[in-house]
């Protein structure tokens, strides 16, 4: 899938970084197959996908640690294929922080400025400001081993940002933090990125992080881009069954297009989604979120169903229901204040149905 380059004009929309038909092989194994995407200036772009999808390899190619087998990495209008990492002017944050253990927080942050031969007085000011920016004023002389995981991650961020890089690369920076801290850091990361306006490429396997942080998401799988779009579009219109599955669409039912606007699910249940877009006879996947399936007391219009079990999830309850004609149970969520049991009526809204190409 190629990049969507139609939006807007003007310099602010110019691509700060672009991957053009990047291919990468390690020996016989092809880990990237003609991957293309771009990040506009100031954009927060996320590479999302399961492990082994090529997201980290893409990041390493942008950083210059790996050479692409084919294709070009462009910074603005220039190809950086032959530029070594230390000349690319990037800020990089790793999952394991990679702080220099024998240097203090301030010395860690100052490293990039020292390499750029920034004057001592200016270095001191900028290091102080960078640490203050990540909420670590007063921690200048601490060594990494005297800092908590969250604080180390902040130092790593300050170290990457203090050099005012053209591009900030984040390799699963939140994965080593516990759940509560991860939420806080996510919020701060977003604020920091907005405040500095630095073009950011973020690698994660966590769809929640991707949705909450990104301006656009590149969903990858086995070295290919599956979908490249804004988070809300990925949420509402996943391109394929894999995309739907990855972002957590609970019900994925094999079906066949029997007539225009008409699907028959495996097992015989006929449904009529509002959009289809597949030729008659095509094998497809019908996707439907549990939250979009409505459960009603028995009677009324809808499909008769039997509740197999219900799982309490706080505000809501997640039910597994057996539908006559369907082999696998349907998942549906309903507010937890009413408990359903036994025979119910199920409403599958046609406008919420996603008809997907089966690429799983």
């Amino acid at each position: 899938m190629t990049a969507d380059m139609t939006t807007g004009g003007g310099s602010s929309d110019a691509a700060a970084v672009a991957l053009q038909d990047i291919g990468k092989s390690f020996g016989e194994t092809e880990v990237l197959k003609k991957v293309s995407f771009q990040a506009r200036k100031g954009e927060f772009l996320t590479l999302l996908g399961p492990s082994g999808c090529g997201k980290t390899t893409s990041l390493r190619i942008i950083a210059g640690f790996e050479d692409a087998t084919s294709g070009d990495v462009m910074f603005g209008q220039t190809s950086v294929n032959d530029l070594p990492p230390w000349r690319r002017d990037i800020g990089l944050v790793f999952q394991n922080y990679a702080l220099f253990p024998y240097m203090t927080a301030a010395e860690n942050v100052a490293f990039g400025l020292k390499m750029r031969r920034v004057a001592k007085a200016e270095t001191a000011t900028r290091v102080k400001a960078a640490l203050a920016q990540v909420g670590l004023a007063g921690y200048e002389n601490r060594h990494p081993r005297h800092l908590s995981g969250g604080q180390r991650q902040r130092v790593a961020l300050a170290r990457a940002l203090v050099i005012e890089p053209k591009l900030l690369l984040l390799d699963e920076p939140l994965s080593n933090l516990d759940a509560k801290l991860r939420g806080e850091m996510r919020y701060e990361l977003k604020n920091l990125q907005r405040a500095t306006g630095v073009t950011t490429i973020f690698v994660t396997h966590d769809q929640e992080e991707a949705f909450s942080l990104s301006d656009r998401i590149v969903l990858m799988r086995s070295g290919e881009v599956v979908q490249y779009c804004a988070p809300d579009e990925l949420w509402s219109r996943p391109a394929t069954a894999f995309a739907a599955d990855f972002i957590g669409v609970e019900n994925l039912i094999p079906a066949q297009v029997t007539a225009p606007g008409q699907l028959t699910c495996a097992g015989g249940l006929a449904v009529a989604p509002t959009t289809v877009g597949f030729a008659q006879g095509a094998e497809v996947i019908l996707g439907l979120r549990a939250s979009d399936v409505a459960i009603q007391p028995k009677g009324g219009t809808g499909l008769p169903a039997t509740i197999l079990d219900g799982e309490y999830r706080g505000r809501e309850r997640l039910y597994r229901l057996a539908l006559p004609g369907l082999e696998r149970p349907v998942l549906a969520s309903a507010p937890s204040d009413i408990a359903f049991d036994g025979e119910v009526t199920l409403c599958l809204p046609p406008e919420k149905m996603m008809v997907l190409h089966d690429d799983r």
Partner: protein
Amino acid sequence: MTGKRDIPWLLASPGILLVTLVALLPAAILIVKAFQDVDTGALTLENFQAIFDSKIFGQAFWRTLRIAFFVTLVSVIGGYPLALLIARANPRYSLVIFVIVLFPLMVSVVVRTFGWVVILGPAGIVNEALMGIGLISEPLTMTQNEFGIVVGETHLLMPYMVLALLSVLRKLEPQLEEAALSLGANPLVAFFRVILPMTVPGLLSGVLLVFSLAITAFATPLVMGGARTPLLSTLVYRYALTSYDWASAAAVAFVLAVIAVAFVAVQKTVAWMWMSRHEF
């Protein structure tokens, strides 16, 4: 009655007994002998006076330190890149290099040293080759001198340096170097500013191993150095078994032990200072 706390001592007692009998006791006897008059048995410093006055001791003393210094230096310069290569190379190649580096440790010292005589001797491979292509007309003297000893000992001791360095290099996260590169350090700067400081502990223990083994080496200096280039270790042998001068032999051995202990003390101090300064 034996309590629980006595069990480790009990289990270790054969080992303790052995070490006491074959190492500690002879060492104690040696120290006493070094300070005793051979005939009367009275305590004296004459033995040391005698060896300090002899020219051959002074030469051997400085030669021992010089050779140990060069062996350590060459082991660091040669061993570091090797360790780096083994730590970084693709596992298949790194195993091959690793085995080649460790191979000298599996061959008898005497065999290995005579191998060097074959290579470096007056009619050895190197001299034959150099004379064959006409670079030299007279064979170079590469054995029976300090050069030969340094070559032989370095070959023997470099593996220890490589092993000591590998133990720290293998624990080094590759991201540290990548972080340095991304911050604008070229690979050379990244090496000296990030990798080297992180491997100082391994370097220090490698230096300790190589230097103390180098000052006490015996077979290599004997074969490669010959009679004209005695070291403290070969001097002990000569006093004890050639001239039957046990008092001088004991005194020289004592000096050698003092050098070894002093070096360990210096190394430990440097290591301790470095560690505390860098908060390891």
